């Protein structure tokens, strides 16, 4: 899947956490690329390594206990894992920005929201006070905060969860980044508010041609917004493909299971089809395919050998022995 248009390319990333109970291989050899103007969704359940992957991109892994032990993260062919701290800070502002699941804990409670958005503009773009305020206002209006001029003087606790997430998005967009990494940005929000936030993402993609790396556990949300999908399981990539590939012709038994276990509102079927067993521990994962203990189509080879990535067609590839 080599592609020259990749703005961001993650190669053989390994991020381990060295805990007292053992080494947690949170990200264990993950490679994928993000293209200009595309929204790529990283999907998986808790503990599959999706957040650790995202944090690794900007070197935000807490160390100790975490450490990126191998791999490359190429942003316009520059390796972020090996660049200087100063360079990384530049890139964090106007190259790659990130928003998090819980807007409450990512905003500073003792500064007004206007100050927090403006801080980045001052820091990265070095604008004067007047233009900074104007830009802040413009950003707040763009993400749909009503009465922005008054509200920029308010503190985070005076906003609702949905509004706080809008502020986080405004702050992330403040320096016009090329890439936006969004880690479960709608998970903490209510159904109708979640829709409003997804609308903003859709607009961003269309109007700014921004590349979005959208991380979520919710396959349903992903269907409506993703160009391509990366399915992760147990710190590894299970399957990559366009949204159509993944939903129309899922190849990996795990992807299959994920789609089949979603409750369907159009019919009260008597039973769902769950994936048996539970999410594996990433301390001492099994030698072969990490999904094999839960897999209905597991074969002897699955317990011995880790499956390689196999290209199915065009952009669709899967790591499963069924196809090798």
């Amino acid at each position, binding site marked *: 899947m080599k592609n020259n248009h990749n703005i961001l390319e993650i190669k053989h990333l390994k991020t381990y956490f060295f805990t007292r109970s053992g080494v947690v291989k949170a990200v264990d050899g993950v490679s994928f690329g993000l293209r200009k103007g595309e929204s790529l969704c990283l999907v998986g359940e808790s503990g599959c390594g999706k957040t650790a992957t995202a944090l690794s991109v900007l070197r935000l892994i807490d160390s100790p206990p975490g450490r990126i032990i191998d791999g490359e993260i190429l942003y316009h062919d520059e390796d972020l894992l090996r660049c200087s701290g100063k360079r990384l800070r530049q890139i964090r502002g106007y190259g790659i920005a990130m928003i998090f699941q819980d807007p409450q804990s990512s905003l500073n409670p003792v500064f007004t929201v206007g100050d927090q958005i403006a801080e980045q503009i001052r820091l990265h773009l070095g604008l004067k006070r007047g233009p900074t305020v104007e830009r802040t206002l413009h950003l707040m209006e763009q993400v749909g905060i009503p009465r922005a001029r008054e509200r920029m003087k308010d503190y985070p606790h005076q906003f609702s969860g949905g509004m706080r997430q809008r502020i986080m998005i405004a702050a992330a967009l403040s320096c016009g980044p090329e890439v936006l990494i969004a880690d479960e940005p709608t998970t903490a929000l209510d159904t109708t508010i979640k829709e409003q936030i997804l609308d903003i993402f859709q607009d961003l993609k269309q109007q700014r041609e921004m590349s979005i790396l959208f991380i979520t556990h919710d396959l349903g949300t992903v269907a*409506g917004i993703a160009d391509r999908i990366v399915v992760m399981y147990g710190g590894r990539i299970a399957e990559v493909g366009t949204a159509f590939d993944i939903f129309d012709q899922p190849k990996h038994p795990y992807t299959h299971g994920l789609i089949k276990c979603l409750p369907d509102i159009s019919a*009260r079927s008597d039973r769902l089809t769950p994936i048996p067993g539970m999410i594996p521990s990433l301390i001492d994962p099994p030698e072969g395919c990490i999904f094999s203990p839960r897999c209905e189509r597991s074969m002897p080879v699955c317990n011995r050998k880790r499956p390689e990535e196999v290209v199915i067609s065009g952009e669709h590839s899967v790591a499963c022995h069924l196809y090798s």
Partner: protein
Amino acid sequence: MSQKLVEVENLKKYYPVTAGLLSRHVADVKAVDGVSFNIMERETLGLVGESGCGKSSLGRALLRLEEPTSGRVLYKGSDITTWNRRQLKEFRKEAQMIFQDPQSSLDPRMTIGDSIGEALLIHGVGTEKERLEKVAELLQRVGLEPEHAARYPHELSGGQKQRVGIARALAVNPKLVVADEPVSALDVSVQAQILNLIMDLQHELGLAYLFIAHDLAVIGHVSDRIAVMYLGQIVELAARKELFHHPLHPYTEALLSAVPVPDPHQKRKKTSLPGEVPSPVEPPPGCRFHTRCPRVMELCRQEPPVLRSREGGRLVSCHRYG
């Protein structure tokens, strides 16, 4: 025809807002503000709504885990809001609760077996040996092994803990179970396992559920009838099929259209619902939904609509339907 198990009549639950040194009572959070509905024997009534709509408060007030401010809750025809402690203890054998977060509803210092057996002990069921047998049987019933009885909560996964939560609720052979967001803390692959378990147990044991959730897809999967709540009131109540195929209330419509469709061929539609849920301290006058309603009329701003019956036994509270 099945019997009414629970009848809720004009139930209210207000929480006081206090201010100042003397904790002056300045206002009320009207979490549940005049709600009436029934739960039939062996049915699942789904209760759906966004955070802060009062769905959890309703569930707790219905079991008298919190004292209702006013209104009546009839269980098998008798008003539990007037019952004394002794009667309530008996009631707890009939009505149980499953909580959202299995982590915080289990005592970390008690073994799984003790946690489940405690209910039996409190109600003085059987001898110690019988109780141990019952615990082993319950564990198997919820898909765990009898050996799990000796383990502690931290040794179990989230899904397993929720199974323990369910086993504990079932220990006293209840007829009614209030399940408050029982799967929202779980991963999707595990969520399906627990939903199946909850539905299987209903068939086997003839339980009635009040199933509370914010996720309409989950609610739709388990419920016979569904009540939609907004700002402390029920805005629509209908059989599952009717609600999904013919939503009447604009809020129900908006909730339904917000359910993500796992199909990339269907283009995402932009949401029709602007704004946010207003504060339950001072709900808007007239219809509480009028500030966000895409089909608001002049009347909606002035007069609150009443929950009225429509054909097919469904209820809706909206001026558009008279």
